[in-house]
């Protein structure tokens, strides 16, 4: 590597229910992004003309999230006309992928200061809005064995023998940890309130977390994928997992990631760029990795991706102080925990997407901010961030506090 990729800051909006009754539903997707662009600029008195690129993840980049929203948001936020922008889609990895690419660009020495992150207003541009051959071209869907992700999550739980109680217990812990962290102010450094044009606050803190839930409430929820499974998707999955007699549908809205609105923004740069601009690095990127696994079960990529990132860094899992796995579904996190043998006290220490939500394209950036905050607060060194990704892909990043 020519340069060390430093993380100068990582911020995000609060997350709120991604449905018409969510607090952020009234906020345009572009304004989630301009909120963060404005904060990043003012917080660091940033000369935006020095930014080489702004890449933001978005998984449904159509309609009001379409047409390269990041570039337009830069203009709207009053950043220099010199700054280019791009929208990136690698399904749920989009946000973390922009972070990894930003690190790679800086490390290569070809760019000096790059912003990454993502945005997703799931209440306004719902999942599936972009169509695509994966689900909507019959010849492709049949040949590739398309199934909704939740079927894969249930299949993982079935194969591993995890019961409904197992996944609900994981979900409950996520809620408890997230509520405690938020209420203790652990997210305050990173979370930027979303305000209206008058400066009136619309949302200050995450309001999707359900601190009052319990095993009984979680246990009362209906499995989300039993219906689609019975329509034929179970059959498609089982054709590829012949040794499984039937799929145990354990995932519900209670133990799957929340559908929320939100955005994130991370600034990565070289040592020199930081010096020139008077920025203090918070961390550095140690290694990054992408991989792909069986697309039908779809969600087992985080383990192999993490192993790849560890190998690249010459580290083992014992060298990692905190592990953050995106809680797309409880079984995904449990599977990663089993794959890497991560102790409970290192895994998702402030809860995850089950409690706070998973604003698809934005989540990767959110996880980076969460890990930076926790490494600093706990005075620890290294964190591993990983995510499961559509199509069977897996992504990972290892960061270090400096």
């Amino acid at each position, binding site marked *: 590597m020519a340069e060390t990729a430093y993380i100068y800051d990582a911020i995000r909006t609060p997350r709120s229910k991604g449905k018409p009754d969510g607090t952020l539903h009234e906020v345009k997707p572009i304004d989630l992004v301009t909120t963060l662009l404005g904060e990043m600029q003012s917080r660091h008195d940033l000369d935006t003309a020095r930014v080489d690129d702004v890449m933001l993840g978005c998984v449904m980049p159509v309609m009001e999230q379409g047409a390269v929203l990041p570039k337009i948001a830069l203009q709207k936020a009053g950043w220099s006309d010199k700054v280019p922008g791009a929208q990136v889609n690698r399904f749920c990895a989009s946000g973390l992928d922009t972070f990894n690419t930003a690190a790679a660009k800086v490390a290569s020495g070809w760019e000096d200061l790059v912003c990454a992150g993502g945005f997703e207003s799931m209440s306004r541009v719902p999942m599936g809005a972009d169509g695509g051959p994966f689900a909507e071209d019959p010849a492709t869907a049949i040949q590739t064995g398309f199934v909704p992700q939740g079927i894969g999550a249930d299949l993982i739980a079935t194969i591993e023998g995890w019961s409904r109680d197992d996944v609900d217990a994981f979900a409950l812990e996520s809620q408890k940890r997230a509520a405690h962290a938020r209420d203790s102010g652990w997210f305050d450094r990173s979370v930027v309130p979303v305000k209206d044009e008058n400066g009136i606050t619309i949302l200050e803190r995450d309001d999707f977390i359900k601190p009052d839930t319990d095993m009984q409430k979680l246990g009362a929820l209906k499995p989300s994928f039993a219906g689609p499974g019975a329509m*034929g998707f179970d059959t498609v999955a089982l054709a590829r997992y012949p040794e499984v007699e039937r799929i145990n549908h354990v995932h519900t809205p209670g133990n799957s990631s929340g559908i929320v609105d939100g955005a994130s923004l991370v600034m990565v740069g070289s040592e020199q760029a930081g010096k020139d601009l008077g920025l203090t690095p918070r961390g550095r990127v140690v290694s990054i990795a992408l991989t792909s696994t069986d697309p039908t079960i779809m969600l087992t990529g985080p383990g192999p991706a993490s192993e790849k990132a560890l190998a690249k860094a010459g580290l083992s899992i014992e060298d990692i102080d905190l592990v953050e796995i995106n809680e797309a579904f409880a079984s995904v996190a449990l599977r990663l925990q089993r794959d890497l043998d991560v102790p409970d006290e290192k895994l998702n220490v402030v809860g995850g997407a089950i409690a706070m939500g998973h604003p698809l394209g934005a989540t990767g950036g959110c996880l980076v901010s969460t890990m930076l905050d926790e490494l600093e607060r706990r005075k620890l060194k290294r964190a591993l961030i990983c995510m499961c990704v559509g199509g069977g892909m897996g992504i990972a990043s290892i960061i270090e506090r400096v």
Partner: protein
Amino acid sequence: MSDFIYEKDADGIVTVTMDMAGQSANTMNARFVPGMQDVIAKLRAEEDLRGVIFASAKKTFFAGGDLNDILATTRADAETFAYIEANKAVYRDLERLPVPVVAAINGAALGGGYELCLACNHRIVADDPKAVVGLPEVTLGLLPGAGGVVRLTALLGLEKALPYLLEGKQAKPQQALSEGMVDAVVAKDELIPAARAWIKANPDSQTQPWDRKGFRYPNGDALHPRIRQTIQVSSAMLFQKTRGLLPAPEKILDIAVNSMRMSFDAALRMESRGIVALMTTPECKAAITTFFFGMQAIRSGKVRPEGPQWKASKAAVLGAGMMGSGIAYAHARAGLTTALKDMEMARAEKGKAYSQALCDKAIKRGRMSEEARAALLDKITPVTDDAACKGADIIIEAVFEDIDLKETVIPETWKQLADDGIYGSNTSTLPISILAESCPDPTRFIGLHFFSPVDKMKVVEIIMGEKTSAETLRRAYDYVQQIGYMPIVVNDSRGFFTSRVFGTFMDEGMQLLQDGMSPAAIERAAWKAGMPVGPLAVSDEVSQVLSQKVRRTHEALDARLGVESDFGHHNTASARVVDAMIAQGRGGRHYGGGFYDYASDGTKSLWPGLSQFAQGNAEVPMEDAIDRLLYRQAIETLRCLDEGVLNTEVEANLGGIFAIGFPAHTGGAIQFIRGIGVDAFNARAKALAERYGERFAIPDAAFDRLRDSAAEAA
């Protein structure tokens, strides 16, 4: 233009009456396209043309493509594509004429015939239940390639079109009208006047909806949220039904969906590419060979022994158990008066009550009238006295499967048979020639093996005893067709044909179990192969207790006859596993559990104890497991053909499909061999024998008959 009668009236309306010379129905034969081209050229040249009516001089409107041509097509190349494009081009030309065109549908318009109707601006059908419309191509492994997929989707919208395209459903006039497949239903002699009146009333209706500016698909375009949801689940729903074994419905779904995303003419070309791809698939050849030509051969009596038609007018069924009750129902349904005899009146009446229950169910579903039920039940008389069977044209014994009992019942009841009547046994295991010895005239004794449940399994294995006469066979054959069942004639052999082959399927499941394959994967392998039920599940239904009993019956017979029959010779795993299962109280579903545990809520799950049977830790690849389950059956079927137990390929194919559920997409066990290629099959069988055992070995000579002949229709 002898095939097309062209008449122009004083109003400027041309009626084109299709009357293909030298054939009873209009078809898309070699003369069709040039003939249509001539007609269209003439219509275009007309100066004061006001409208066109397409009519038929035959009983049916139009019967569609020539399946012999499709069977003969072996290359999915540019030439075949050009041929398909030329065929459909005349329909496109027709719908672009500058005047309204009306289809006057006097009788069945299926396949290419209905596609012609779809290319007209208006469709009027005669009020006659035989005047059905539809696109049955999918049932032959094809798609409607003359615009049927694209036009029906545009006419009805995706959701309404799919069932007609994917299942080949046919619609009678009133249903076709309510679905929008036709525009009007009129009395037959009103057809032409109605067509003429419509043209006069709608002189400017010459443009098809899909050729109008701003055309929207009925009930939602491709981007409509509900249509998109339908599309998202449609592939999985289809896969659940077809298991990925049928290329035709997959192709049709893909074309129907994607046709909404492109221009009409581009969609028509995509449809042509699709049918070219399908025409050369083994699944298409199998469907046409077995389900069209094979069924036709059996229906038309090609494999029936020659002689005058025989009809039974009175029957007796002995034994009112499950099989006897089912046979009595089959008789009554076909209007055949039947005495249902059992030892006790309560049992005989219970047997008749079975028919009552089936009728009640049909009434509940609106498929039967109360009068029809009364008439049906009236045909069955429960009796206990032999004398009540007096004068029966046919007696069928369906008493308990016990040779001593049968040898008592047969001679006793024989006396009641009409002088020229025939006597059938519904035994599934006992040799017919041995049972025949117990009756006074073995020439009139024959095996009539029905399958359970009789009302659904519409096939009968007719077993010739050594002394059974050709005359008796012919009568039995006619009787089976009289009650609407498919006759499959076989010669006497241990297990006949069906039980022999079925036994190999169950045995191979247990062989896989011994090899250490996971039970769930074994069942899944059978599912992937296309079998209706897995070998372990079906063994439970048959029950281990019965399997053991059958095996012991044959052993006892061997002892009695002083022979060593080779029945079940290769079924080494079933002998071992079945006996062990019974010893552990796992006798089958009826006995509280077997390979599966059965919960009180009706669900079942594989018994964890099955792991005890795994002898090795051989990882059996899924492809091998699938092949093993199918090759065992195909090899046994070929042995039956080779040994003369079976007489014809068509019976081998259809008998296997209908009686024991051999996967239909293969076209039957022999067509399966042909589809793979005789030499490739032989080589694979040898490889399986090498790796898994002698049961896959078959002498090369057994394949000779397949090499010497192309697929025989009969």
